[in-house]
């Protein structure tokens, strides 16, 4: 059994997802504690050419599982083969794709699973993870039971680790062992569609301006987009706004939308329902703009601005542009 830390490195459209860079850095951090190396399991379009560059973010080695545009789950069989070869822990992004692959590992190899975690470390050779549970009111620490198999599977929220930049290392690239013949390879993409409106991947955004029912219409999102662009961020939404058809579902934040962990979340016209909260409560800074002084979001925001979003947001956009000189 090696002391290596494996991580899933997903590639899309020719380049690594931000999660791949974050996990490279996270895996390197854990590997320095466990006395092993950070090893990327790279898959998806661009993985073959791009895997070596993960070295700049912390990966010592990279195993290329495949370069095709297949559903992530179709790579699960190859991940299983790689994980059989050893490793103390395997980090997976807490995204739908990451969870699918992690779940297959847990079920195929009977591995302990943790997460989504907000921190992980090694203590006397054993992984120890921290999770926020019960709507963030409790932090639990967990570890594998004695004698549990390895690698431990750890789901990691976006922005838990900050990717190392400016490194120049190159990961030593190898090809994957032959994938086992598991049923998951039978999942295929029958059709693929782009959303009508262009949407960004919210999980990767570090600044998010989110709008809810209070935004009142599709056009109401205009001022939010302006603010997001002044801040260099992206626009998100509550389910109420997505249900109303004002914004695509890909931008919904919450229990059944994206779980985000930006450095700044600004919520406008959002009441702060529990299902929304679980998708954004780990943001580093939460600003809420709401005309109801008693809105629940005011109870957990860092800064609560009571007022009409249609007056405050344009004024804030102007002020930010003025300060940035743009």
């Amino acid at each position, binding site marked *: 059994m090696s002391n290596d830390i494996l991580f899933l490195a997903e590639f899309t459209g020719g380049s690594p997802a931000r999660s791949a860079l974050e996990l490279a850095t996270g895996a390197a951090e854990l590997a320095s504690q466990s006395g092993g190396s950070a090893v990327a399991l790279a898959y998806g379009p661009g993985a073959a050419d791009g895997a070596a560059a993960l070295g700049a973010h912390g990966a010592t080695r990279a195993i290329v599982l495949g370069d095709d545009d297949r559903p992530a*789950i179709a790579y699960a069989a190859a991940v299983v083969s790689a994980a059989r070869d050893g490793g103390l822990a395997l980090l997976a992004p807490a995204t*739908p794709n990451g*969870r*699918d*692959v*992690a*779940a*297959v*590992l*847990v*079920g*195929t190899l*009977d*591995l*302990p*699973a943790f997460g989504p975690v907000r921190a992980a470390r090694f203590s006397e050779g054993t992984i120890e993870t921290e999770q*926020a549970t*019960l709507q*963030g*009111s*409790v*932090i*639990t620490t*967990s*570890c594998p*039971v004695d*004698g*549990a198999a390895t690698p431990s599977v750890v*789901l990691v929220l976006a922005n838990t680790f900050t990717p190392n930049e400016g490194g120049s290392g190159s990961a030593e690239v190898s090809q994957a062992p032959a994938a086992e013949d598991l*049923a*998951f390879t*039978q*999942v*295929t*993409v*029958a059709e*693929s569609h*782009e*959303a009508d409106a*262009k949407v*960004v*991947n919210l*999980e990767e955004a570090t600044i998010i301006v989110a709008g809810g029912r209070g935004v009142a219409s599709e056009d109401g999102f205009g001022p939010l987009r302006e603010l997001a662009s002044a*801040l260099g961020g992206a626009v998100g939404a509550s389910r109420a706004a997505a249900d109303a058809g004002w914004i695509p579902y*890909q931008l919904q934040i919450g229990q*059944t939308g994206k779980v985000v962990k930006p450095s*700044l979340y600004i919520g406008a016209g959002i009441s702060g329902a*529990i*299902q929304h909260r*679980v998708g954004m409560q780990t943001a580093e*800074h939460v600003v809420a703009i709401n005309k109801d002084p008693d809105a629940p979001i*005011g109870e957990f925001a*860092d800064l*609560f*601005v009571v*007022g*009409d979003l249609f007056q*405050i947001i344009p004024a804030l956009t102007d*002020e930010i542009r003025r*300060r940035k000189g743009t």
Partner: protein
Amino acid sequence: MKIVVCIKQVPATGADKRYADDLRLDRAGVEAIINPLDEYAIEQALRLVDDGSVESVTYLSMGPEQASEALRRALAMGGDDAVLVTDPALAGADEWGTAKVLAAALDKLAPDVALMGMASDDARGSLVPGAVAAMRNLPLLSYGAELNVADGAARVRRLSATGYDWLSAPLPLVATVTDQVGEPRYASLKGIMAAKRKPMQTWSLSDIGLSADDLHGAALTRVTDTRAPEEKPPTERIENLPAAEAATKIADWLTTRKLI
């Protein structure tokens, strides 16, 4: 065509929950409901019955005796029968332990589609469906905004980061659906009455060919500590100011934190 919908009884959303001294969730005295996201799986299954592509719907739950209430409530929405797997050895099961039990029960029920909600309200790994699929070596179609079955295969419409895909795999398989499949139907009074007469079986571990030893205490993980989160500074408020002044204050706040 036969569907088994796996459901979990959970504490009501927003109920006051806490960890007991044994580091397990204290469920005593908390109202219990069907995991809200499982109701969408029920709704999806019943819609497939309505449109004639599925003949029967069975509900499966692992949990304490009281979880039979959740199964009755599901039967009141529609469907044919239910199975509760309950055993003292299952207290404190983690996602792996839960998957192990559901997989064994599903082997016995042998549905074309084992359908589940996309996540449970009280645990956030969303790993059970995929682990069940892996244990049974079946394909997984997850996070469907819509599910259909035809010609020996199932398809789900799944949102991607920037659009959506239709994913397809041959039956039998495991699938999960999201809250986009449509609002769950209410149980009618007639449904509630009918549910009382629908068959419900209770299985122990040995009924599904497992022993407590196979399950290592039903968990591969353990909670070693619980604590309160770091104290956050109290919420700062900006109120009763004209928009321009409020904007200046917000910008100051952001600047102090190096966010601009």
